[in-house]
Every structure is written in structure tokens, then in C-alpha cells.
């Protein structure tokens, strides 16, 4: 048993609950930290220097809020994912520590799991946790279940027009899946039951709805809290069918990165050292494992998505790299990298969405500064899909909504004559 209860957060409330359940299923005490709201943002901003992207403030604030509500904050540790950058995501953990220290919770450790080398995290030992292959598999499964539940909500709300009934069924399925994961059982029965319930809803006849794909910075696009201004529900309220991003696509991207970076270095005369160099590593084995992980994740998602009747397949990482390459090098690493550009091109090519909405924190380096610039050009040439980018500051939602309303109006007008949009929204830190 771990010595401290792990607090987990940073995804949607559905994902957070399932990840905590998966940890508990392996005997590790864990709780969701809670969805970050406007109050969390205010706390984070007050405790930290300015200039960070706002997930830092939201997440630090939510953590401090959670600890302030606790009678014994010293019994917790915060579990988070880290990376070696190069965007500010790499600094989240350090800022969480600063925020905890400033709020008087120095005794609460922040345990960082490297997203590319999770098993190498030595800090987990300090809180009595062993991150082995099985636990990683359980956590990935929880993420996939979370994706399927979130996407099932979007898919069926748009197609049945029975939002209340869909939400009720989802709440029950989340409870069932959480229990299953806690007890170390498969979540498949819970998902099958959900699929049956949703299938029975029938609902309103299919009517043409605007099809939206959500992309952008990982936190802003994933959270269902204030960090996204509750964008999914807002867009659905205006008649759109929203395809949210999937956490599992991110996991596939991580595996693909590992594979791509390794394959690129395999033919070198001698291996280099460094985070991506192959000195001391078995390159072919890394490639095999990464490819295996991608396939396993896709298969798992496919199975669960079929069970609940979600028709959105996962994006293929190799295909995305080919699509993006002429415009944004797939070997550049930061945030979502080339994925935003490639996702838009895929949506346009496959006519899978009428509009791509990119949401990101104000001044998100990879997304606002780079992807948006490339997409501004590509969106003008696209015939089947529009593009709109909005930035979140945590305030002045009305201005973001104004830009989205324009994009929705324009996208709704149809196919070939659809005006394209390239809008920027707002934000402040």
C-alpha cells in the first residue's frame, strides 16, 4: 500500500475518476484532484509568477484548493505527467511545487511520471508505488474508457437529441466502469450496457448538424472545466455535433514519437547520447515496443467504441505525419506538434468535419504561434472544412463566443461556397 494518497488530475472529470479508480484497483490509494474552475485559476495566478500558460495556474490552483479542503493535507502526493519539453509543459511540475510551497503545503510531494519513459520514474518509490507494465496497461485502459465515455456523450447527444437521457446513462456507466476498474475487472460489461441503453434511445430523426472537430492544446481541449469555457456543451447548445479529441490519440502520438525518433537514429554511424539518442538503448526493441503499444491502444479503443456505438475512428499517426510534412515538420516536438495541422488536413480531406475548432491557452507557444500561422494559410485553401482558433484567458468568454458564433454561422452555410475563417480569440495570464 502506498504511503500517501495520490491526487490525479489534468484530464476531463470522467478521465480523472477512471484513472483514480484504476490506481485503486491496484491497491494504490488515489483520488481525483477535482475539476479546475475560475477560482482555481485565481489561486494559481496569485501564487505563481506571470507568463506561464494557464494550465499551470488552473492545475496548481485546483491542487491547492483541494488541499485546503482537506483536514490532513500531509497525507497526499500529487501525481502528474511530465516531459522534457520543449514547451512550458515541461515546467508544470516545478511550478506546482512552487505553488504548494507558497501556499504552505511544502510537505506535499509532486511525483512526475515522464510521459516517454514512465517506468523510469524513481520518485514513485518515495510514495510506495511501483509503476510496472501492468499498472501502465491499467492506466491506459482507464484513459481509453474515459475517451469512449466522453465521445459517446457527444456522439449520442448530437444524434438522439436526448441530452438528459444520454447524460444519465453516461453517469451510470461511469459509476459502473469505475467500480469495475477498482475491483480489477474489465469495464467491457459497463460499456456494453451503455451501448444498449443509448441504442435504445433512438431519439429524434437524424438531422443535419454542423460537424465540429475539437483540437488545440491538450489541457484546454480535454478539460470539461473552466479551462475550456465548457466549450463542448456551448457548441452543442448551438446545434453542433462535436467530436472531441481523444486522450488515446495523445498516447498513440507519444508512442509514434518514440518510434519515429528511434527509427531516424538507427542508421547513424555511432549512437549519440541525450534524451533521444540511442546510446545504451536497444533501438530495434524500442521501435517494436512503440509500434506494439500503438496497435494495442487502437485495438482497445476500437473495441470499446464499437460497444457504445461511437463512430469516430482514431486518427492514424503515420498518415498524419505524411499529411503535415510539407507544412510543419513532424519531427518538431512541442505540445501537439504537427497534429493540429495534420488533423485539419485529415478532416478536410476525409470530409469528416465542417469546422475545426482549435482551443488553447493564451500565447500557447506551439499552437498559437506556429500551428495557427500555418493553418491560416491552409484554411484559406481548404474546400471542405473551416478553421477557427480561440485562446482562453479564463475571462471575457463573451469575446471568444463572438468569434465562435461567426465561425459557426459561416460553416453552417455549406460546402464549396463556405467562407473560411481564421480567427483568434482571447486570453491573459
Amino acid at each position, binding site marked *: 500500500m502506498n504511503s500517501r494518497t495520490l491526487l490525479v488530475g489534468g484530464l476531463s472529470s470522467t478521465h480523472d475518476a477512471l484513472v483514480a479508480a484504476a490506481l485503486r484497483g491496484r491497491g494504490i490509494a488515489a483520488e481525483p484532484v477535482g475539476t479546475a474552475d*475560475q477560482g482555481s485559476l*485565481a489561486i494559481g495566478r496569485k501564487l505563481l*509568477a*506571470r507568463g*506561464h500558460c494557464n494550465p499551470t495556474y488552473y492545475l496548481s490552483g485546483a491542487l491547492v484548493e483541494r488541499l485546503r479542503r482537506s483536514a490532513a493535507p500531509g497525507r497526499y502526493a500529487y501525481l502528474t505527467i511530465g*516531459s522534457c*519539453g*520543449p*514547451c*512550458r509543459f*515541461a*515546467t508544470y511540475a*516545478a*511550478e506546482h511545487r512552487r505553488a504548494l510551497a507558497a501556499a504552505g503545503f511544502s510537505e506535499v510531494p509532486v511525483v*512526475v511520471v515522464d510521459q516517454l519513459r514512465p517506468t523510469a520514474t524513481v520518485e514513485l518509490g518515495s510514495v510506495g508505488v511501483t509503476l510496472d507494465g501492468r499498472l501502465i496497461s491499467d492506466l491506459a485502459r482507464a484513459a481509453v474508457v474515459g475517451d469512449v465515455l466522453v465521445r459517446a456523450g457527444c456522439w449520442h447527444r448530437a444524434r438522439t437529441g436526448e441530452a438528459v437521457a444520454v447524460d444519465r446513462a453516461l453517469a451510470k456507466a461511469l459509476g459502473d466502469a469505475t467500480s469495475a476498474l477498482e475491483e480489477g475487472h474489465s469495464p467491457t460489461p459497463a460499456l456494453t450496457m451503455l451501448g444498449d441503453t443509448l441504442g435504445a434511445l433512438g431519439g429524434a430523426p437524424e438531422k443535419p448538424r454542423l460537424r465540429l472537430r475539437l483540437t488545440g492544446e491538450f489541457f484546454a481541449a480535454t478539460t470539461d472545466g473552466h479551462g475550456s469555457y465548457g466549450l463542448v456543451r456551448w457548441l452543442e447548445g448551438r446545434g453542433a455535433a462535436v467530436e472531441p479529441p481523444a486522450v488515446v490519440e495523445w498516447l498513440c502520438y507519444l508512442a509514434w514519437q518514440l518510434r519515429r525518433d528511434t527509427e*531516424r*537514429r538507427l*542508421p*547513424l*554511424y555511432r549512437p*549519440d*547520447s*541525450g*534524451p*533521444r*539518442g540511442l546510446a545504451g538503448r536497444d533501438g530495434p526493441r524500442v521501435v517494436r515496443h512503440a509500434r506494439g503499444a500503438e496497435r494495442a491502444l487502437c485495438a482497445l479503443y476500437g473495441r470499446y467504441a464499437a460497444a457504445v456505438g461511437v463512430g469516430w475512428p482514431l486518427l492514424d499517426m503515420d498518415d498524419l505525419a505524411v499529411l503535415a510534412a510539407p*507544412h510543419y*515538420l513532424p519531427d*518538431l*516536438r512541442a505540445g501537439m506538434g504537427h497534429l493540429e495541422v495534420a488533423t485539419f488536413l485529415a478532416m478536410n480531406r476525409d470530409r469528416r468535419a465542417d469546422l475545426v475548432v482549435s482551443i488553447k491557452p493564451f*500565447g500557447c*507557444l506551439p499552437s498559437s*504561434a*506556429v500551428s*495557427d*500561422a*500555418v493553418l*491560416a*494559410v491552409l484554411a*484559406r485553401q481548404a474546400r471542405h472544412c473551416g478553421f477557427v482558433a480561440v*485562446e482562453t*484567458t479564463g*475571462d*471575457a468568454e*463573451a*469575446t471568444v463566443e*463572438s468569434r465562435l*458564433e*461567426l465561425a459557426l*454561422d459561416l460553416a453552417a452555410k455549406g460546402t464549396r461556397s*463556405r*467562407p*473560411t*475563417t481564421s*480567427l*483568434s*480569440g*482571447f486570453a*491573459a*495570464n
Partner: protein
Amino acid sequence: VRETVFSMSSRTRMLGLDVGSTTVKAVLVTAPGARPERAIYRRHLGDPIGAVRRVVAELGEAAVMVRAAVTGSGGRVIAARWGAPHVHEVAAITAAVRARHPRARSIVELGGQDAKLVVIDGERAHMTMNDRCAAGTGVTIDRCLFRLGMAAETARGVAYVADRARRVSSKCGVFAETDLVNLARAGVPADDLVVSLAEAIALQNLAVLARGMTPAPEVILLGGPHVHLPALCGAWRERLRQLWRERGIAPGEVQVPDDALHYAAMGATEIGSARDTASLAELAEALGSIPHDVPLRLDEPFRTRETWEPARRNEPAPHRRRLHVGVDAGSTTCKVVVTDDAGTPVASATRMNTDPIVDARALLAEVEQVLDGAELGAVGVTGYGAAALAPLLGADAQVVETVAHARAARAVAPDADVVCDVGGQDVKVVALNEAGAIRDFRLSSQCSAGIGMLLEATARELGVPLAEYAPRALAAPRVPWFGDACSVFLDANRVTFQRQGFTPDEVLAGLVRALPRVIWSQVMNGTPPSALGRVFVLQGGVQRNHAAVQAQVDYLHREVPGARVLVHPFPAEAGAIGAALVAKQARNGAGPRLRPTLEGVAVTVRSDDGTRCRSCASRCPRSFVEVSLPARPPALHVVGNACSEGAEPKGASASAVARRKRAATPNLLDEEVRLFFHPRHAGRPLRRPPRPLRIGIPRVLSLYRAAPMFRAYLGALGVDDVVFSPVTSEKLWREGARHGASDPCFPVKAVLAHVHHLLYRVHDGGRRLDAIFVPHFTHALTPVKHCVDTASCPVIAAAPSLVRAAFAEEFARRQIRFLDPMVTVTEPQLLRRQMFEAFGDLLGASEDQSRQAVKLGAAACQWVDDRLNEQAREILDRVERDRRAAVLVIGRPYHSDPGLNHRVGEELQALGYPVLTVRSMPRDEAYLAGLLHRELASGTIADPFDIRDLAPEVANSGVAERLFAARIAGRHGRVGIVDLSNFKCGQDSPAYGPLRDLCDRLGIVLCQLHDLDETRPVTSLRVRLRTFAHAMAERGLA
């Protein structure tokens, strides 16, 4: 405003209503596309619903039947209430323009908060809106004019003259306001300021709003700013014609139509209107009870009153035998005080800024009587106009503003720990030690400036007299939560709150509640007030607003247990009082002095083509101020110069003294520019390529580190002709600034301008380029070890992708090959592979030859490093030996570019400090081990290149190097630090906290120059550096 009288018939009309962020526009038309029978334009003063009700009542007789259509950001709730369609304003203006101007290809509409561009391409239309940093277009113009004390009518009479425009950033309203105030302080004529503002808005919109598109003719300009500021239309015409010329587009018309204010309202009726008719009376009545939205978060209403402590108010000495004069020529006002020995004013006078000399002369005349019969002890001057006034008044002391405020605070509160001065433009927070010396100081950056003026401007926009601000805000029942953002974002929130139904009083209360959060979050950048002390003295003109004081007191009491908060008895005059006290001390009891006078001083300002600076190709506009003194030859001063090169009328260079100091004081920032691009790196070729090639490389970003490697590589493989773009200049930036499709930091945007230079100046100028090389730098080589990684900033790494997106057509048209390979300098084997893949074919080189060339490149970099390290070591040894001081300028590699560092190195040289750089700091392990022996002995670090104790998870090269260099400076003991960072540099923010902690721990004097952008922050640079020099001197580091 057209309010045509018409005969009311019984026919049903269409009502178009446009509810914007600051105004309401309404039209009545008989049919879609018809000219309005009646059109009304009103400011809504923060009450859009009430304003709409009044406007509807004014439109016509109550019984007139209409079908309504609504547009505008504030119109949705009204549309819902009326059962009318709500049309997005961009769609509305597009419809209106299509109906009236069939040849129009582009529409630019500027509103109070939003800017919109529509480019019409047949049936398609590309639409963009401004991002948030550029928001507040109309509001920005209003505020700038208000700050300049210029009536709207006067501004309307200013014609655009292209070569009178000065460099003003319009990235956001705050930046523009700051730049204009600085230019005004420098004596730039008012007409030039209006032209500069107009030029800045046009350029910024072309650079950002257009997102790489070309607004083709015919161009229709809509919205209030285009109607009310003809100079703006002139700027559009000039800049669009230039753009069309450059891009081979035939010129066309740029026009502001008659009904430019009402196009959105007219367009709304053309897209569709309500099915049901209603009378105007019914519509007005329907607005009676619109429920307010429930905001997510409310702020605390004011409950307690008068909980702050007035600082001790010394009674004036009964026998005022000796008096002193203090003058504070501040950002918005000029003040003169006459004080006794204790610093208690016996007379004071204030007036709004026009010209410091004119103001001071008038004010001195006002207080002159008080000096009769008394002996004059000393005269001190402070503020932005101090440099001009001090010699004319024969001042005993010219005092930095921060020092003046600190001195004034100590006079009324001898135990003061923190002085918080909030003026119209700037916020200054000064932390004092027990002896009253400056321990730490922070000044508002570009982003956090203007909060004081925002309170005043918002009150004005909401129709609330300034005198009523405090009572109305303090009585507000609900207070919206404004957060702690910059002035532009706060103003955007105001619009949201207005839509949610908050009253003007409540909005003002929320805004003033945000004031302390802005101070302690934005200005102090996360340093909590409790870290600075317990006794706070509030000063500055904003403290006359009791609501502002109450908000700060509540905040400080909440954040600092046991805090004492005192308000200076003369908050607005505190700077002038401090100047008088410092002058008295400087005079050190010497006998009475002559009374200061500016009588007989004549000032004339000239600003024309003859006053332009001729130091470089930019030919920046500037002004000459001729000061004529009785019985003395006239003195000529230069104002509004962009850099120190333009500080003398003849354009030779800065003053002789400054020049001498610079010659005697090394500046390694300049040395880096010389060494990185030294011709020696070309070396001898290993081979010749199949044909001679000319390759262009923009002198940007990480090239300020890796240029020697690429120059040597290309030279070794036989490329003799490598053309680097010049250092960044205003001219280069202006010419190439319109190509980006996003708005990143200035250093990255400048890349596009440099590539533009290579294309349009170098290639098109006759030196044909075969290729342009802009590598994707994924990493940087640093001396730091044990980091998680040393990656480049992701925007820098991806900058070549921005170049490709912006110039793909230009490259193809000119048949220039664009080379943008990945370059991973931290992995030697991979780097060799990458270079061969990039150049092997082009240069016909074998892999072995390419590998050999990479080795030569690495040697060239090492040669530069060795030279820089040697010179830095000499400086460090010399200042230690001579008991002098040096300054380490920490920044990114591109901060060596004088166009990006705004010549801060020269300023430091002029202050007498040798300038060190991050790259130059010694790497000799034995030497460093001596400096860092404490850390090594305690096991805090594994070796001198270990920074994990300062920041354990650093993955970015810039952050790692900063901390490494800063620690060496701190342990050396005689080096202060100037920290450079650009606006929107998210990658620097993780360094702020650890750097501040390090400086506090090691006692390093730190000066932060953050939020740098395209314009040179002349005055804030001066105040910061002079305060920095003062703090250095107080620690014996002169």
C-alpha cells in the same frame, strides 16, 4: 450622425440594431438595401439596454411598426427578447458591402473592441478578427487621445503625412499608449503623435489581422475610428498602396462610405428580420425586465471604510526660514512643491503635462510668493522631464523617481518597508532595508502599465465624474470579478460585465478591486507582499481615489498578517517632496542658493525632414528643441530619437562623455555580433561545388550562436558567397512586417522581416540568391550539465515553418531553394547526417566531405567561445582588482542583436559598466570551482555546470544558461544583472522565480527588462537602469 426628417407613413419598416462594446447604432429602412430613413449613433456609457430603449424611442413615433434585426456583440439578449434574428456583425457588414459596393474586395471594420477584416473572393469571403492583444481599437484611440490631452475635434483635423510617423507599437492598446506618452514627453508634436498612432494601427492590422492575406482593392473602411480619425484612413491608403505595389496588384480605391457607422445595422436587415412586426413602443417596453446573467464569480463588495492609517503629517515649521523646492515632471502631470526641512509642503501646484519647461515655469510662478522672505535651501527635480529641467533650474539634484518616492515615504514613515507608488501610467514598488536604502524595486512593464489611467478612462467612458468614483464604487452592491490581467484584458472584461447587466457603479467597483491584484501579480510578478515587509506606504495620484486605497488596504491586510498600511498625506506630490529632500541632503547644509526661474527661457520645437536622424539608413524622425536663455547662446536638444546614435543634432553619436565612457568600457554584446559573423569563419574550401552558389541566411535567433558553424561549413564546401541579412533595424522591420499569419514574440516575427529583406533587397536588388537557409534549431549547446534537456524554444524551433507558410509563393516565383533542415546540435552524429541530407545534393559533396565541414564548423564556434570567455575573464578580474563593477546582461542568443536588445549595452556602457553576456561567462572549471566552492563543498551541486539545485526540471537551453550565468555573477560579487525578455516569451517565465530567488539569496542587484517588443521603451529603460545604477552604488558597486 444622420437624422433625416421623414414623413411617417403607415408602411412597416425594418429596424436594424447594432449593439457594440461602446456604442449603439440603429437604422430604419423601408426595404432591405434601401438607404436609411433614420439613423442614430450613440455611446451607451455602460448601459447598452437602457441606451437601446432610448434610441428606439427616438427612432420614430411609438406606433411605427417594424420588423427588427439585431447584430453586434451585445445584441444577442435583445434579439432573443424581440424574437428577432441575431446576425454576427461580420456577416452583417459583409452583406451590406456586397449590396452597395459590388467592386469591393476588402472590408476593414474597426469597432470599440474588435477589428475585422473581410477579403471577398467571388462567392467566398475570408474573414478574420483581431486577437486579444490587439483588442480595443476604438477604445485605444480614445484613450490615447485622452492621454495626450487632445480633443477629438483636433484629432479629426490632423492629416496623414507618411514621413511624420514615429515608431509606435500597436500590438495592444497599452503598448500604444505607453509609446505615445513617451513620445509626448520627449516633445514630439501632437499632430505627429496622431499620425504615428494611425500608422501603427494600420501596420498592426496589416501584420496580424490580415494573417498573410492581401486586402485587395476596392477597400471599404467602416466603423467609428475611420469616421472620426481621417489620419487613419490616410495611413491605410499609404500602406495598402505600398503593399499592392510590392505584390504586383493594380492600385485601387480605399474609401469610407457615408454611412460607415451604420453598415452593420443595415446589413442585419438585409440578412433577415423578425417574422412578426412590432411597434417601436412595444420593442422599447420589451426591454424593461431583461434578467441579468449570473456571472461565474463575484468579487467582494466594499464593507469596511477608512481602515487605513494616514501617515504622519508633519506640521510646517512655524518659522519657515529655509525652504526647498521639488519638481516632479511626471507622466501625466507636472508638480512643484515648496517644503520645509522636514519635507512638509507649504505650497504646491499641479498641472496636466504639456511641455516640462512650460509647465514648470507656470508652476514656479504659482508658488513664488511663498518663497518671499525665506531663504532657499535646495532644488531637486525628478520625473520624466527631469533631464531637461535640471540644467535650466540649476538643480542641486536630479533624482530617479524610485529614489524620490522612497525618500518621501521615509520622511513620513521612518519604518516604511515598502513604497507603492501608483501613477496614471506606471506603478513602482520599492522595497527598503532598515537604513532606507533600496533593497528591491519593480516597475510596471509594458503589459502592466496604465492601470491608473484605466480607472480614470473607464469612469469617463461610463459617464461617471472622477470625484464620484469612490462613493459610487464603495456603495456598489455587486462587484464583478475582473481578475488581474493587463489593462486591455480588463477592459475586455468590462464589456462582458456590461452584457451581463452590471451597472457602471458595479463595473467601477470591480475594476478598482482588481488594482491591487494587478500590482502584486502583474508588477511584482508573484512576489507576495509579505515577502517585502510589513509597513506599506501608498503614494501616487491614484491614491486620491479612496476606493483605490480601500481596495489596496483590504488586499494587504488579507495578505500580510499584521500589516500597517499608510497613505502618504500628499500622495500625488510625494515624488516632488522626495526630490526636494534628496536635494537638501545633496546640498549638505550649504548656504542659501538663488531662486530657480525659467523666466526668459524660450522653447521652440522643430520636427521636419531636416530633423531626421541620419546615423543609419532608417532615417528615424525626431525633433529638435531649441532652448534660448537670456544672455546665453541657445542650446539645441534632440528629443524623440530612436536610439543613442540619434542623440546629437548632427547625427554623429551620443554625447562626448558617453562616447568616451563607451570607448573605455567593453561591451560584449557588441563583441558577440562582431565575432559571430566574422568573415574569418569562411575559411579555406575543401572542395569547389559544381557551380558557384550564393546562399542567404537571415541574421536571427540562434544564428547568433551557430552562424560560425554554418559559415565555416559552407565555406569548407566551397560556398564563398554567403549573405547574412543586417542586424534588425526599424526600416528592415517596417518593410517586412506584413507577412506573418500569427503574432508570436518580436524576435520570431523579425525572422520574416529578415527573409523579406533577403528576397526583396538582396535578391531583387541584383544579388541573386540560389538558396535561403533557415534551419529548424531543435536544441542549443550550453555549458550546463545534468539538465533534463537543452531544447530550443518551440517557436524558435518552428520558425522556419512560419517562413515557409509566409513566403512559399515568393520562393517559387524567384526559383530560390528554401533550405530548412532540422539541426540538432546536441547530437553530433545526427547533426552530421542532417547537414549532409540538407546540403549534399546541392553542393555535390560526399558524406565524408560534409562530415569534415561540420568539424570545421564546430571549431569555428569554439574559436568564438574562446575569445568571448577570455574577454569576460579579463573584465571579471579587472573589476575585482579595481573594486569596480560589471553588469551581466542575461537573455537569449538573439538579444545580442542591437535591434532586439534596444541598445541596452550602450546604455550600461554610458553608465560606466562593462557588459558581460551569458555566452561569454567563463567555463574554465578550475576558475568556476573557486567561485562556487561553497556549493561544491556542501554537495549542493555536482560540478560548476550543475543547476539542478536552482531548478530541478529544466529542459530549455535559455533557462539553463541564465541560471548558470547568474550564479557565477552572484558568486563573483561585483556583477549586477540585467535580465532581458521579450513580450510573449513564454519560455522565459520558468526562469523568473528561480532567478529572483537566486538574486535574493546572493544579494545580486537585478534589473528586469521584460516585455520588450518592437519599440524601444525609452523612458522605462531609463528609469529602470538609473534605479539599478543607484542600487548598485548603494552597495558599493559603481
